[in-house]
C-alpha cells in the first residue's frame, strides 16, 4: 500500500479528477494549499503597494492505494495535471503502514478498496 500525494494546479483539479475516475481510482481527499516550486512570481498592485506573490495556490490530492493501483494513479495524475509549463506540480509516493475503514473495521487492502454501493 502507498499514499500517493499529488500537488497540482488548482485550475487542473477537475481534469485530474476526471482522469482519476477514468482510471477507476475512486477514494481520495483534496485540499487547497499554497506552495512554491520555482514558478515565476505574480506581481499584484493594491493602490501604491506592489507585491510579488511568492506562494501560488495549489490543489493537493491524497490517494491511498493498493500496490497494483500505484502506477495507474500516477499516470492519471500526470495526464490530468500536465500543461508543460513550470508549475504543473509534483507527485510524492510514500509507504503506508496501516489503513482502517472506520465504518467496518476492515484493514489494509480491504480498506483502500472502494465500496461499490
Amino acid at each position, binding site marked *: 500500500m502507498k499514499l500517493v500525494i499529488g500537488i497540482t494546479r488548482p*485550475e*487542473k483539479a*477537475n481534469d485530474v479528477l476526471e482522469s482519476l475516475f477514468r482510471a477507476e481510482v475512486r477514494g481520495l481527499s483534496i485540499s487547497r494549499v*499554497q506552495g*512554491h516550486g520555482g514558478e515565476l*512570481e*505574480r*506581481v*499584484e*498592485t*493594491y493602490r501604491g*503597494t*506592489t*507585491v*510579488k*506573490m*511568492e*506562494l501560488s495556490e495549489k490543489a493537493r490530492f491524497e490517494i491511498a492505494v493498493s500496490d497494483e493501483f500505484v502506477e495507474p494513479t500516477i499516470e492519471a495524475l500526470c495526464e490530468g495535471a500536465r500543461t508543460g509549463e513550470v508549475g504543473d506540480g509534483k507527485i510524492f509516493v510514500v509507504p503506508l503502514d496501516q489503513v482502517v475503514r472506520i465504518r467496518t473495521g476492515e484493514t489494509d487492502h480491504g480498506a483502500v478498496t472502494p465500496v461499490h454501493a
Partner: protein
Amino acid sequence: MVAAATPPGINPGDTAWMLIATALVLMMTPALGLFYAGLVRAKNVLNTFMMSIGALGVVAVTWAVVGYSIAFGGHGPLIGGFKNAFLSGVGFGPRAGTAIPHLLFFAFEATFCIITAALISGAVVERMRYGTFLIFMVVWSIVVYAVLAHWVWGGGWLAQHGTLDFAGGVPVEMASGFSALAAALAVGPRKDYGRQALLPHNAVYVLLGAGLLWFGWFGFNGGSGYTIGNPGVLAFTNTLLAPACTLVVWFLLDLRRGGHVTAVGAATAIVVGCVGITPACGYISPIWAMVLGGLAALPSYAIVVWRTRTRVDETLDVLAAHGLAGLTGILFIGFAAQKSWNGVSDGLLYGNLHQLGWQAMAALVVPAYAFGATFGLLKLMGLFLPLRVSERVESLGLDTQQHGEEAYASAEGAILVTTESLGAEQEARLPVAVPVQP
C-alpha cells in the same frame, strides 16, 4: 433671511426628489456589480464587479459627450440630434415637459444609461477581455441605448404613436436583455460551460445586491415621473408591490421544481419583479401591478430553467431577468393601463385596443433592433480586437490576469516590492524567509 432663488418653471419639491432619485439610481450600478459578483466563481469576482464599475466611468462620459443629445436633443423619428452634445444648452432652466432643471434631467437619465450598459456584462462574464468590453459599452450606449431611449422617450416614432414606457422597458430592460443574448452568441460560451459545474461563489452577495437594486429601483421608477405628484407616487408604490408578488410566485415555482425555496432564486425574483413593473409602474393600478408581478415570474422562470440546457452561455440570465420580464411589462400596459389612474391612456381591458397594438409593436421591433445591432457591433469589433481572453487566462481567472489583484488575497507569501528593493531583486527571490505568521 433670503429665500433661495428658484428659476421660473422649476418646482422645488420635484427638484429635491429628483436629486435623491438620481443618487438612488446611480447606486444601482455597484449593486448590480455585487449581484453579478456573487454569481461568478471566486477567481473572477473583481473582473465581474469591475465591468459594472467601468460603466460608471466610460458610459457616463459618453453620455455627456454625445449620448444624451442623440436620445433627447431633438424630435426626429429615429434619433434626436447633436444640439446638446458636450452638454451644450443643458442648464438650470426647466427641461421641456418637466418642472426640474435640464441639468438634473440629464444627470438622472445618465444613471439609466450607465446601469443598462453594465447589465449586458452578465452575458459575457468570466471570459470577455476587459478593455474590449469597455470599448463595447461606449459604442453600445450610443448606437443602441441612446437610439432606443429616443424612440420611446425623446420624441421618436414610438413616442409619437403613443407607446407607453414609464421607466425603461424599452431602452433599459428589453434592450439589455436581447443585447445580452446577442453578446453571449457573439463572444461564445466559457470553455468549461456544459462540462463542469460553474456555481455562484457567494449567494450572500447575490441577495445583498438584489436588495440594494430594489432599494435603488424606488428612485428608478419613482423618479421616472419627474415629479412628486401622482405618477411618481403610483410608480413608487407599485415598485413595492409587484416584486413582492414575484417573490411569492417564484418561491412556489422553486418549491414545486426542486423542493426548496432558494436564495439565488429569491434574488433573481426580486430583479424580475422590479423589471416587470418598470415599464408599467406609472400606468396601472396597484392591484394590476400585483397581478403583473406574479405573472412576470412565469416566462422568466421558464427561460432560466430552459437556457441552462442549451449551448447558449448567457451566463447570468440577463435575457430572462431583463429582456423577458421587460417585454411582459411592456405588453401588460396594453391590457391593464387605466386612465383613471394614469391620466394618459386606457388599455384593452378598458376599451382601447390601439394601446395594445403599439405596445406589441415595441415588443417586436425593440428586441430585434437590440439583438441585431449588438450582434453586428461585436462581430465588427471582433475583426479588430480580441473579444475573449486566452483559454489559459480563463483557467487562471480574470482577476489576477486582467487586473493584477485578487478578491480574497491571503497575503501569505507576498513580498513587498519598493523602489529601493527593485535594485536588490535577486535577494528578494526565494529561498529567503517568507513572512509567515508564527
